[in-house]
């Protein structure tokens, strides 16, 4: 019986999306400031209304999201029809020209958000949200990332920081004396490497997104070497790939990381990202240090281990004082494609501290809202502090590039890490792609 329903599920989702799209007549803009009475309280009666939502969260994350919206459903009487999928980019790319879109959706990144705005698909949120409260409660870097030409189209309902260096405290405990600079990190890392075969663990295999852990590396190095301005100009296409700053970042990655990697670049290319950190815990250890975002604690050999005693982390070190507090983060950007009353109400609810605290307390997420701080453990608290304390906050560069550029960035880092290209060759190739990708 159940399997029959499971088989029908994709069809039902499509049906729901179609229903949602016919219900909300596209083009009929109601975002002219005509708010429903009592809208700001988020307690309007929406009994029977449905909001279709698609997001990248599945399994545990999906449960957390549903737990987050449950109080809203109770308050308003409306229901959320959620579908979690990893191919959100493909679905939205196909949905923009055809108009088959959900009411609310997770957006792959600010770059895609701008594309959807240009296509006229995303609805502005300035009149939907209590914008002053939103701006005040949210990290300014995140607010800016959700805007196109000063108009807010995307909000963050949770966030994450990248740029954490993980280590196994039983090999060497860095707690209390975290390396402050890159040179310290390399020197101390090599001095305390012990039996570990390589200094770093690296794994960049990830299906058709292979290479992204390496692009994260390049981004972190560039952000701390050259600063957020160069970083932002770079993904925006205003700094050439052949620029010395970019080349230095690539060379740092190749010389200080790939050359000191457990099993070399070939192993990195052949290893899945979620299992890449496992050699940290092997005996003898494969590596001493591992760079990955916070979600790694839910994957591979990290599962079932205790933060603080089995593994720990420190923030990405500075290359110079100037950019020491810059942080690369990620966030789940959320946008609205149909401005139904229920969709607007849900959007207003999701940005509140009360809503975000639900997910934060369940673990696995950092809030975008400064007032949501119910973190379950020390590492989460450390990362939450990194976000609110960041003087400069940048978003994942490869996610913000035009999609063609981002895809080429990924695949060239696979070739580069595997050793089948030199830095010069890769950068020249990437510049050729850039000339084409940014011209449109």
């Amino acid at each position: 019986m159940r399997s029959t329903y499971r088989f029908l599920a994709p069809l039902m989702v499509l049906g729901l999306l179609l229903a949602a799209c016919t219900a909300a007549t596209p083009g009929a803009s109601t975002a002219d400031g005509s708010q429903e009475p009592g809208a700001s309280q988020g307690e309007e009666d929406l009994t029977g209304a449905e909001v279709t939502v698609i997001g990248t969260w599945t399994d545990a994350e999906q449960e957390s999201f549903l737990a987050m919206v449950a109080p809203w459903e109770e308050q308003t009487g409306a229901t959320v029809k959620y579908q979690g999928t990893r191919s959100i980019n493909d679905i939205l790319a196909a949905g923009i020209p055809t108009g088959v879109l959900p009411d609310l959706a997770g957006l792959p990144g600010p770059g895609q958000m701008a594309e959807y705005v240009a296509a006229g698909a995303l609805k502005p949120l300035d009149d939907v949200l209590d914008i002053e409260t939103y701006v005040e409660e949210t990290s300014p870097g995140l607010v800016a990332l959700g805007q196109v030409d000063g108009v807010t189209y995307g909000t963050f309902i949770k966030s994450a920081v990248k740029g954490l260096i993980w280590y196994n405290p039983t090999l060497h405990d860095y707690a209390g004396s975290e390396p402050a600079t890159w040179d310290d990190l390399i020197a101390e890392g090599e001095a305390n490497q012990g039996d570990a075969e390589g200094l770093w663990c690296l794994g960049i295999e990830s299906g058709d997104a292979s290479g992204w852990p390496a692009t994260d590396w390049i981004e972190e190095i560039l952000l701390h070497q050259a600063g957020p301005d160069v970083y932002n100009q770079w993904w925006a296409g205003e700094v050439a790939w052949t620029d010395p700053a970019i080349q230095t970042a690539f060379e740092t990655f190749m010389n200080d990381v790939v050359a000191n990697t457990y099993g070399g670049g070939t192993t990195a290319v052949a290893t899945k990202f979620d299992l890449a950190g496992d050699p940290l815990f092997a005996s003898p250890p494969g590596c001493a240090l591992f760079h990955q975002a916070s979600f790694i604690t839910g994957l591979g050999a990290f599962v079932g281990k205790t933060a603080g005693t089995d593994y720990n982390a420190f923030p990405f070190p500075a290359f110079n004082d100037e950019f020491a507090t810059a942080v690369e983060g990620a966030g789940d950007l959320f946008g609205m494609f149909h401005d139904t009353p229920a969709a607007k109400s849900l959007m207003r609810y999701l940005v509140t501290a009360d809503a975000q605290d639900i997910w934060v307390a369940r673990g696995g997420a950092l809030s975008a809202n400064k007032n949501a701080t119910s973190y379950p453990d020390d590492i989460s608290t450390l990362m939450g502090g990194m976000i609110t304390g960041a003087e400069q906050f940048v978003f994942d560069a490869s996610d913000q590039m035009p999609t063609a550029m981002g895809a080429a960035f990924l695949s060239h880092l696979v070739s580069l890490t595997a050793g089948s290209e030199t830095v010069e060759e890769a950068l020249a190739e990437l510049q050729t792609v850039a000339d084409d990708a940014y011209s449109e």
Partner: protein
Amino acid sequence: MDERVITAIIAVVGVPAVLVAYIWGTEQALRVVPEKMKPRIRPWLWMLPALAFLGLFLLYPMIGTIIASFQNTLGTVWVGLENYEWFLGSNDALSALKNNVLWLIFLTLFTVGFGLLIAVFVDRVRYESVAKSLIFLPLAISMVAAGVIWLYMYQYKPPGAVQTGTLNAAIGVFGLGPIPWLQVEDFSVNTFMLIIVMTWMWTGFGMVIISAALKGINPELLEAARVDGANEWQVFKGIIFPLLVPTLVVVGTTMVITALKAFDIVFTMTSGNLNTDVIANLMYKEMFRVGEFGRASAIAVVLLVAIVPIMFFNIGRFRAQEAVR
């Protein structure tokens, strides 16, 4: 009543009923046509539903794709041959094209060659049906599953670590390797590793068809040759092989088309990285990852143009064979 029961009734009773009603309806309509014309019109009326489906689901999208290949991403501006110029100027596209040629030559060669070899050999053993079933089995596996299986076969761990990949564990017994099978770009080794997966799947197909043709050869012919003193190699070279050529051509052309359409294996195993890309995967990437509808359409048209002559050739061969019978 349960919704599913209603659906089942519609499917089991409704569809045949509609078909019968359609045939009956056409007969009613044919009443107005003079008796002499009826035999000429009737087949067309019977084919109409099938033709309508073909037109709607095959012809219409095909024409749409050709039109889109001359337009920009959103289909708003005519760009002439720009999408095709991009294709010919892109290193990725040319590398994919080169790999497709490798696929075309070697997949066809391997599947037809091994298929022939196995068909001829198992023809002479007692456990023929068991052997044939085993070799045919991989064809029943979905391509994605085959890709995942072979990912484990090819898995690579650094030297010194426990080799969990079947192949590296096997050669490790002799103190060799480990070899990063899917990461070696020199001489397109990784592309060949992918072709081997497809060969593993499709050899059974070639074998079954060739074996059937082999059974169709009159044993008296072979007997006569042997009586005249021909050895087994001469029998094969002089009689069996020439008689099998039409079948080999049919299998070969089918494999050429399969090679040109190769996608699943590449997508699941390397997703086109490290110079293993093929046309179909490139098309998927341009379409769904990059969102370049115009370029993706141009790639589709290139693929179509490459396949159509082979299909016509195949149909021609098929007709010639039918005529002989």
